[in-house]
């Protein structure tokens, strides 16, 4: 990988921000998605609103760096400070257009594992758990996950489905099982973007990030990933996108410009 004018995380944030449509109510969560929301809101989605499970709704992104969604700058100027169950109520009603979920592992059908690697009763790795992830996965209209592209993270089938994507990949699996939203629409990785056919099923490669190749990406994917003829190159972050990212993450805490050993998505070991 050659040195670039931006980090892989910055590219991921820029790509994630493009998933936000103007007027969307976005279940924002933490970390890179929080930045993606800030970028979108300052660019193509000036009428988007963010909803946070801690119990907040905002329009403007917070004016200062956030370590968590509950940090004081995220509260000042909020449009609503309330209970989690009220934020969840909106999502259960289908009012959340887009959610972001982090994960340690994702599989070919977009299912996420943030709970257990190995047997739940005697796990090899105990991951932190769902948090709001499963709620977003099941209740938001559509959702996106961000992931470091490694073979141990993009696996054929996760051993434990914390946050269901398209389940076993059969068409209509979500509807059949009573899940409300349309499920995952994109997996944004450090190497490219995977998408899903409408109605669910198996992910396919949609674009490869600048400086990377399809082969490189396939080598780091734990299943024979579908590669359509029209795979494109991911658009690099624009100058405006980068400026916004760096405004909201001045130290590079979330976007890799700062050494950050304890990656929250790390499966450890």
């Amino acid at each position, binding site marked *: 990988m050659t040195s670039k004018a931006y980090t892989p995380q910055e590219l991921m944030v820029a790509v994630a921000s493009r998933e936000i449509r103007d007027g969307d109510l976005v279940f924002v969560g933490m970390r890179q998605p929080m930045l993606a929301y800030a970028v979108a809101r300052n660019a193509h989605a000036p009428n988007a609103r963010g909803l946070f499970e801690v119990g907040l709704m905002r329009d403007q992104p917070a004016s200062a760096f956030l370590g968590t969604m509950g940090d004081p700058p995220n509260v000042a100027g909020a449009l609503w400070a309330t209970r989690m*169950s009220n934020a969840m109520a909106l999502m259960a009603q289908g009012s959340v257009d887009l959610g972001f979920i982090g994960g340690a592992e994702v599989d070919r059908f977009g299912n996420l594992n943030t709970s257990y690697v190995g047997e739940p009763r005697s796990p090899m790795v105990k991951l932190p758990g769902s948090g709001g992830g499963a709620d977003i996965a099941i209740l938001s209209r559509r959702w996106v996950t961000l992931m470091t592209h490694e073979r141990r993270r993009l696996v054929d089938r996760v051993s434990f489905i914390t946050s269901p994507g398209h389940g076993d990949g059969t068409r209509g699996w979500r509807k059949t099982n009573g899940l409300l939203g349309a499920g995952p629409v994109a997996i944004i990785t450090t190497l490219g973007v995977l998408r899903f056919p409408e109605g669910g099923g198996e992910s396919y490669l949609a674009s490869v990030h600048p400086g990377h190749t399809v082969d490189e990406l396939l080598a780091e994917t734990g299943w024979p990933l579908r590669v359509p003829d029209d795979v494109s190159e991911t658009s690099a972050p624009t100058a405006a996108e980068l400026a916004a990212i760096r405004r909201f993450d001045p130290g590079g805490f979330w976007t890799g410009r700062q050494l950050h050993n304890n990656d929250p998505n790390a499966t450890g070991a």
Partner: protein
Amino acid sequence: MSMARAIERFVPDGSTVAMGVALEPLIPFAAGHEMIRQGRRELELVGPISDSLFDQLIGAGCVRRVTAAWVGNVSEGLGHCYRRACEQQIPRAVEVHDHSNFSISLALWAAAWNVPSLPTRTLLGSDILANSPGLSVRDGLVHVDAVRPDVAVVHVQRADEHGRAHAWGPLGITEEAGLAADRVVITCEEVVEAEVTLSDPNRILFPETKVVAVVHEPGGAHPSPVQGYFKRDHAFYGEYAERSRSVEGFTAWLEQWVGGIQDRPHYMQRIDIDRLRITRHRPSVPVDFGDE
């Protein structure tokens, strides 16, 4: 009441304890540390995400069961003590009742309303259903069994001595946790006169009939943020994450910040608190409860 007395009286061994119910803010670390100091054992911890506090109690061997949506370190990632307990039974095995954020809220609402369970669509299709005894599927819905804490420990900005607590900012599952619990222990930045709390009864969190103790404990939520008082101490979380990677590191951390410290006032002397103090004030515009 002193923290030591409140924990001794109201959080005995074996208690089911709800904490961290406002999620990332207002986490009652001082109360949790006092539980560790008193060698509390066999606790069941109940909460949504618990940003490091549950990890510390687990590492200290206080915990028998965790009923939560997430246990880790929000800005840093994994909870190393939680991992060791689940993976290697160090210092002891911990039973895990997994939830999502929404389902733990509903479990508490079920207890608050005194019904066996509440229905929801969340968790449909998740393997959490098969791994948590309090969750079942009937008629295409998930039924979340009631979770009744013996005690909810809640840190707030201000309270009066009668137990009327004002908290502001996002409240997470604070309200349902307090209503579901048999009793509530309040820890607070400031103890104020009743005329302050009663000037705004809409902001009073709980019926005073639930509240058994009010502990004046300034800084009692550090390193978590307190709107209007303290920023989150990100670096402190970072250091904890690093040092808790090994048993030895965690043990040393625990001795430095809990075992070797008498109480929260002494802890606060070791923190550069002015770095965290909020100085840009944003007062709420009053409302008028005028009646005649």
